[in-house]
Every structure is written in structure tokens, then in C-alpha cells.
């Protein structure tokens, strides 16, 4: 019986495992052994890792500190967060072989908390995508149905936590890249307030939108990880000098009197029937727990996707200029300097990266700047204002995370616009800089996870944890692990 139980350590959460380590009922070695066995059993089907080396993982486990709140907890890190002397490639050919000479701030924090950094999670190239299909290492599969995508861009992080190949994972969210895959894989994904978590060491996609956040198996772990990674960083001037509360204190069962906003713009005709049904149930559950549902309007929601693609691609075009073959990564020699640039970037970047670089370069070009970039910034301010108004009358806003459950591999690769629309509900939080969490809220009729999104005003992660935790504790449906 004990053996049976030990072999399933991989199924546990970080807070459960920490408890076991604290009372000496399991060792770091037991945990890593269990997780590695799980990886060996399912990874060929999931392909959640971009880089994973069993020997390295075991070596790290052997060296791991026996103190720290995350002591011995195996984690997967998205391939765009720098780890000193370890491959960090953004799943792009252009960063082939790149090992940063430094740790991202979140990595230093996880390391000192004792976490065991197992390997690098697969992702869409440079986080450009919503399906994890643009990775140069090939797509990750959804553990609930391997013919389907796990979501993206942090698809690897979501799938690894979902398939119990990692206890938790870090991802990054620029337009939904944590929440959308979390929803499609049935795990908890948080995009913190812009500036809550240091971006130092996160290879930038769109600097004014990017945030690092956790993928976890439950809301408690999400709060636990945030306790470790949140906070001001003098190395990142966009990180906020705002005190970090103990988020676990807000894991309360009661939502009595909580005002939950219902934004009509998010309940559109194209919304999947199963998704709609589960959201209705969620509203009902909150109501039954004493929360008040308030009808609100976010009138500029329709413009969010267009605004996002101008802002994000403009910034990306400049952020990705440094990948030129001069210092690191891929270099394709040419007769002239210009040739080296052209060949290197032609060979190194995938189609979606090229599409976004061209789009961004265009919208920043002289003569187009006012009509695109500047206009987008103005609309962005209006979208932010929508939320400012809404949070005058409600504490959190509840929406679906995605319009549909996971779609089929290849289904939207030929139609970028359809792909972009899968982030329609997640993009506004990035444009406004507010925190948002995706929490599992059931399964579609075909057994695919459905996620709901809770948004709050800037730095009000506590109310998100409160609402999400109360929902998680009181939900009427049962968790079904993927049958992989």
C-alpha cells in the first residue's frame, strides 16, 4: 500500500509534498524518482519538454538544499526564462545552443526556495502562438486528447503540470499565454499584475505586456508560488515597489458579499455551448455562496485583439532585432554583413515570428506610426479605462478563459486570424496590466477541460485567490485526470 502510494507522489501538489518532506514521510529522492518515472511513462505522448535530461535532473536532486518552502519540488520552466548555463532557446532555431550567463530573477528566487528545476517546457517560438505548434522542436499534445493542442504559448508548461510530469511550472503571459493553455489543460494558471513579478531574465516578446506566472495543480499552490516569485526587483524598472502580502492568507472559503462582474461583451454568440454552460454553473455556485452578480460592460472589448497585435508586434519587432548572428545562437555566414543578417534571420525564425516582425516593423515605420502604433496606444488606454470603471462596481470579473475547449492540432495553423481570436478573452487583462487567473471549471461533453477566468484590479491578486479558492473548494464536479 505504501509503495503504491509512493509511486503516485507525482500526482500531488507542491503544498502536499512540502508537508510530507517536512514531516519526513518522503524524501527529495522519492519525489524526483516518482516524477521521473512519470515522465518516462508519458512524455513521448505529451512532448511537454523542450529540454529534459534525466541525469541532470537527478544530479540536481542530489545537490538540492533540504530547506526552503519549495524544497525538492520538481518544476518545469518555460524555455524563455533564463537559467544560468542551461539551454534557454525560446524554442527557436535562432537561439540554438544558447546558454545565458545569468539567472532570471524568478529563477534565483525559485532556486533559493529549494525548487528543483527539472527541465525546459516547450512553447510557441518566442511565445508567438496559441497552440504550441510553432515550437522549433515540434508541438506539445494535450494530455486529455493527444490529437489536440495544449494551448499556447506556454503549452509545454500547462501540459507538463496537467500530465503530472512537473508539480508546477512557470510560464509567461503576453496575451493569454498562461491562462489559455491552463484552461485547455485543466490546470490553474495565473497572470499576475504587470510589474508584480520581475521580468529580468524573461526573454522579451512584448515588454509592456509580458508577465511571468505559475501553472499549478490547485489554487493553493498558485498562491504559494506567488509568495516566492512576486516582488520588486531593482533590475527591472517596470517592476512595482508594492509590498507583497502573504497570498496564502487569502485562501478563504467565503465569498459572502463579493461583487462579481458579468461582462456582457464576453458572452458572445460564438461561445462554445459547453463553455457557456459551465460558466453559468460557476455564476450559480458563486451566487449560492453569497456573492453578488453585477452586470457590467467593457465596451471596448471588440478592439482588444487588433490593438494587441499592433502593440505586441511593434515591441516584438524591436525586441527580436538582437537575434542577428553576431554574438550568440545561430549564424549563417554571408558575403556581406547584410547577407549574414538576412540569412541568419531567414533561417533562424519560423513563419509566425517573421509574420509578427514584419507586422511590427510596418506599424512603427515612418508614415504609419500614427495610424497604427499611436492609435493602438490610445485604444489601449480606453480598454484600461473600461476596467477602471468596472472595478468601481465589482471586485472581480468572471469570464470564460477561452471561447472553446482545445482545438485539433493543425486546425488553425493555416489561419492566423482564427488562431489570434482564441485569445480574445485573455488579451484585455494584458493591455490593462491587471491580474487574471484561469481556474478549471469542468469538462466539455467530449471530456476536454474548460476554464474560467477571474480578473481583478491591479495588485488585487488576493481577491483572485479568495474567489478561485472558494470556487475550487465548493465546486460540484469531480476532477478527472487525463487518461494518458
Amino acid at each position, binding site marked *: 500500500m505504501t509503495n503504491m502510494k509512493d509511486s503516485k507522489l507525482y500526482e500531488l501538489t507542491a503544498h502536499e509534498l512540502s508537508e510530507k518532506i517536512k514531516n519526513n514521510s518522503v524524501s527529495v529522492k522519492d519525489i524526483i524518482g516518482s516524477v521521473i518515472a512519470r515522465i518516462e511513462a508519458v512524455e513521448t505522448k505529451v512532448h511537454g519538454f523542450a529540454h529534459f535530461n534525466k541525469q541532470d535532473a537527478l544530479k540536481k536532486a542530489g545537490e538540492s538544499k533540504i530547506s526552503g518552502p519549495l524544497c525538492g519540488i520538481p518544476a518545469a520552466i518555460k524555455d*524563455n*526564462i*533564463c537559467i544560468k548555463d542551461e539551454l*534557454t532557446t*525560446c524554442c527557436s532555431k535562432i*537561439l540554438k545552443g*544558447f546558454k*545565458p*550567463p*545569468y539567472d*532570471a530573477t524568478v529563477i534565483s528566487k525559485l532556486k533559493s526556495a529549494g525548487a528543483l528545476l527539472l527541465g525546459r517546457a516547450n512553447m510557441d517560438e518566442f511565445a508567438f502562438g496559441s497552440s504550441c505548434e510553432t515550437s522549433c522542436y515540434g508541438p506539445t499534445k494535450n494530455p486529455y486528447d493527444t490529437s489536440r493542442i495544449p494551448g499556447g504559448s506556454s503549452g509545454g508548461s500547462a501540459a507538463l503540470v496537467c500530465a503530472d510530469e512537473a508539480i508546477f511550472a512557470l510560464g509567461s503571459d503576453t496575451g493569454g499565454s498562461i491562462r489559455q493553455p491552463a484552461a485547455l489543460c485543466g490546470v490553474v494558471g495565473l497572470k499576475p499584475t504587470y510589474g508584480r513579478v520581475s*521580468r*529580468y*531574465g*524573461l*526573454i*522579451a516578446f*512584448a*515588454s*509592456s505586456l509580458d508577465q511571468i506566472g505559475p501553472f499549478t495543480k490547485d489554487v493553493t499552490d498558485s498562491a504559494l508560488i506567488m509568495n516566492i516569485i512576486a516582488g520588486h526587483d*531593482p*533590475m*527591472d*524598472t*517596470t517592476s512595482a515597489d508594492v509590498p507583497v502580502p502573504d497570498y496564502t492568507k487569502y485562501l478563504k472559503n467565503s465569498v459572502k458579499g463579493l461583487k462579481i462582474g458579468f461582462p456582457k461583451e464576453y458572452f458572445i454568440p460564438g461561445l462554445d455551448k459547453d463553455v457557456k454552460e459551465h460558466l453559468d454553473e460557476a455564476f450559480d455556485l458563486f451566487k449560492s455562496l453569497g456573492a453578488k452578480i453585477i452586470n457590467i460592460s467593457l465596451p471596448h472589448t471588440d478592439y482588444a485583439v487588433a490593438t494587441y497585435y499592433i502593440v505586441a508586434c*511593434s*515591441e516584438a*519587432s*524591436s525586441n527580436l*532585432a*538582437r*537575434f*542577428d548572428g*553576431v*554574438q*550568440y545562437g545561430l549564424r549563417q555566414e554571408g558575403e556581406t*554583413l547584410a547577407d549574414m*543578417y538576412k540569412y541568419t534571420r531567414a533561417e533562424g525564425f519560423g513563419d509566425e515570428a517573421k509574420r509578427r516582425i514584419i507586422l511590427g*516593423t510596418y506599424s*512603427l*515605420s*515612418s508614415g504609419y*506610426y500614427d495610424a497604427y*502604433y499611436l492609435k493602438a496606444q490610445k485604444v489601449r488606454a480606453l480598454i484600461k479605462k473600461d476596467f477602471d470603471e468596472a472595478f468601481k462596481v465589482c471586485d472581480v470579473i468572471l469570464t470564460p478563459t477561452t471561447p472553446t475547449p482545445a482545438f485539433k492540432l493543425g486546425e488553425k495553423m493555416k489561419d492566423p486570424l482564427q488562431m489570434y481570436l482564441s485569445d480574445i478573452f485573455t488579451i484585455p487583462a494584458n493591455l490593462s496590466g491587471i491580474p487574471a487567473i484561469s481556474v478549471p471549471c469542468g469538462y466539455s461533453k467530449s471530456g476536454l477541460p474548460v476554464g474560467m477566468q477571474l480578473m481583478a484590479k491591479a495588485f488585487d491578486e488576493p481577491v483572485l485567490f479568495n474567489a478561485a479558492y472558494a470556487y475550487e473548494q465548493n465546486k460540484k464536479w469531480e476532477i478527472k485526470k487525463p487518461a494518458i
Partner: protein
Amino acid sequence: MKQQYEIVVGLEVHLHIATATKAFCGCKNEFGLKPNSGVCPVCMGFPGSLPVLNEKYLEYAVKTALALNCKISDKMKFDRKNYFYPDLPKNYQISQYDMPLSEAGLLEIIAKDAAPKKIRIKRVHMEEDAGKLLHEEDNITRVDFNRSGTPLLEIVTEPDINSPEEAYAYLLTLKNLLEYLEVSDCDMEKGSLRCDANISIRPAGQAALGVKVEVKNMNSFKGVRAALEYEQKRQESLAQDNEKIIQETRLWDSDKKITQPMRTKEEAHDYRYFPDPDLVPFEIDPALIKKIKNNMPQLPAEKKKQIIKDYGISEYDAGILISDKAMAEYFLKCAQSYNQPKIIANWIISEILKYLNSKNMEFRYFDLPPAHLTDMLKMMDSGKISGKIAKDVLSDMITSKKSPQDIVKEKGLLQISDETELRAVIKAVLRQHAQVTKDYKSGKEAALSFLVGQAMKATKGKANPGMVNKLLKEEMGNI
């Protein structure tokens, strides 16, 4: 009749700011380190790294802008200037575009043989420098990123400069001001000050500006003046021949002393400026500006007034003294221990400057202790040494580093003021030159100076010249 043209020049100075660390990271801001030893992920533009503004850099920038009488912007914003080049590790430069640190300043200059003139400063903005390409013998180009991310100020004038000589005076005045501010070493040869010029000509009296040519690659102030002189002639001769002047960038070739085309406007970059999302805009704390204003060092114009008023130095000489901060400081130190400031000024301006010019050396490297100079002047006053000997003592002091007392003692240079000794010398001279003595007595005044010279020669220059004069006349009267 030949058409007269007026030349219109605007200057862009890139100034390297001498903070201890770089503009956006903690690396040393130092010249001459081993290639790529003063670098970190931030100034190497490594993926994931982020810039953080050096507060000292902001302080120095504000100080400079205030000294140029500029209006400081309420809000600080940085932009990205996007272009590809291997010395630019991010392939964009952090700069300031539509909201520079400061605008609308003034700098008063005095060009050679001209009245004072105010040059308007259009803007002063902050930006980071790029690295350096090293083209090596093995036909491989390497990049040294030590300079990458070092702090610069770009100082741009309005097109208010109307001659190469004015441009030269502007640069000297600016350099002088910057030295007083102690924000930069302004060494053009080390690249800590770079200057590009925009030049056009127009028929005298015409209001509209002509077609502008940008001239780059000058490596000294004199080079700027020479390039503008060349460019003025080139454009005038094109205009005289009714040929079109095209808008272009030209490079100064300091060996051939000509400018040559680099690129035309059509090939110009689109830099796609946009606000740098990594550096959040912020308001400059008014308290910081106040603090900088209150701690502003004395600037050259003020120092000049002080030297004229407190020491009775002429406007012209005061102008020379303050033209180099180290020289002005040297003068003031000497004036503390010797109460004849005019004599000090004369010795600095005539003797010391002559020496420095002959060595092509800057005053700040002149290491003669002020006390040595003033001790020497005091010895002259008290008749211990003659003025002629003093000049020799000065050059000896500069090379040997010894005190004037030691030099005079070791070389036996004390002036001979002993009457008996001098009278004996003079008698001997008069005996040797009986004919000249006669000439003098018959009214040939010039003969006296010959005899004085002979007496000085006989004493190896040590005779007290006043006494020699007096005694000569006496002795001749006795003959």
C-alpha cells in the same frame, strides 16, 4: 559682380559623460580596458536583460543642460532608435526622440576678433553609446562592447553659427564650460567628444536656408574648422557655377583635407523610434533640479568676472586664464601666496603657456607646484635673482622638479648686488672697451646698452641690471 554668400552651420556634439558606471548597468565606464572586459548581460544586450537608469547620469545631464541655460523637461522618457549594426548589441539604441531631457538653451561665444554672440541650443538629450568594431589584421572584424551602454549627451545647436571660426569658438567655449562642470573629459582624440556639422550656404541677405550637407568624421576642433572652411568653398563654387548642391552626408578626410560623399538622403534610415517599454517614463524630481542648481560650480563667465574684479587683471588676460579651468585654478592658487596677481598672470600667459604649447601639452598635465612659481617671483622681487635668470630657473624647475631656492643655490645663480664686486667688473669692462666709452660720452646713447650687456656677460647674467646701469654711469663720469 560676384555673388556674396553667407554660411549657416548647426553643430551636433556627442559628449561622453564621465560617470563611474555605464548609463543603464553597473559596468565601469572606463576607457582603455581590455576588450570586452567591462561588460555584463545588460550592455551586451543579452536576451532577457533590462536597463536601469544610472541616477548619476541623469544628474550630470541635468547639470550640463542647466549650465547651457536649457529648460529641463518635466517628464523623462526614453525611446528606442532601431537600426542594425554589429556594434549595437540590441540593434536598437536607447535614446530620446520627441521628449528630450531639455530644450531651448543659449551659449555665448567670442570668435577670434569678433564681438560676443549668443548661440541658441536646440536640445540636449541622453543616449547610450555603441560598442566599437576592431578591424584586425587577419581580415576579421571583432566587436569590443566596453563602450556599449556608456552614457552620452547629444548637444544640438540651432543654425546660428555663421563661420568656421565661430564653430571653432563654439566648440572651445563648450569644452571649457564642460570642464568647469566636471562632467566629461572632452577629449576628442579618445572619442569622448564627437562633433558633426550641418552646413549650408545662402546668398547674403536671403532668409530661407539653403540645402543642408552633413559633415562627419572630424577628429579635432581644428578639424571641424578646416572641414567647414573646405565645405564652404566647395558649396560656394558649386553655387557660382549654378550647380546643384545635394542634401547628403559627407566625410572629412583629415589627410587629404577634403570632404567626400558618404550617403544621400534617399538611403537614409527609418529609425522607427518608439517609447522604450523597458524604461517607464517618470517626472524629474524638482528637488533634484534645485539641488543641482544649488551645487552648480562656478562657471567660466563668472570666474572671469571674479578674476577681473578681485585681482585687477585685464579683460583680455582674464579671458585667457579662464579659457582653461586648470590654468584659472593655477592662477588663483598662486595669487593666494603672492600679492602681485598681474605678475603671476604675465608669467602664466607668456612663459608657462609658451612652454606648454611647445610641448603640445594641456594645462591640466602641468605639474609645477604653484609655490615654486611664487617663491621664484618673490626671489625676483627681493633682488635675489634677475628677470633673465628667473626664466632659466623656471624651465629648470619644470624639468628638475626642484625648488627655485635649491636651483639658485646649486647653480650659484644669486644676483650680484655687491657694489664693490660690480664696480670692479665695470672698471674692467670700461678698460676693455675704451672706444665705446668715448662714443657714449660724445653722446651715442646706444653705447650704454652694449656696455651693460658686456657687464652682464662678464657675470654670466647674474649682475643686478639696475645697479650695473647706475654704476656704469658713475664710473664713466669719473673717467
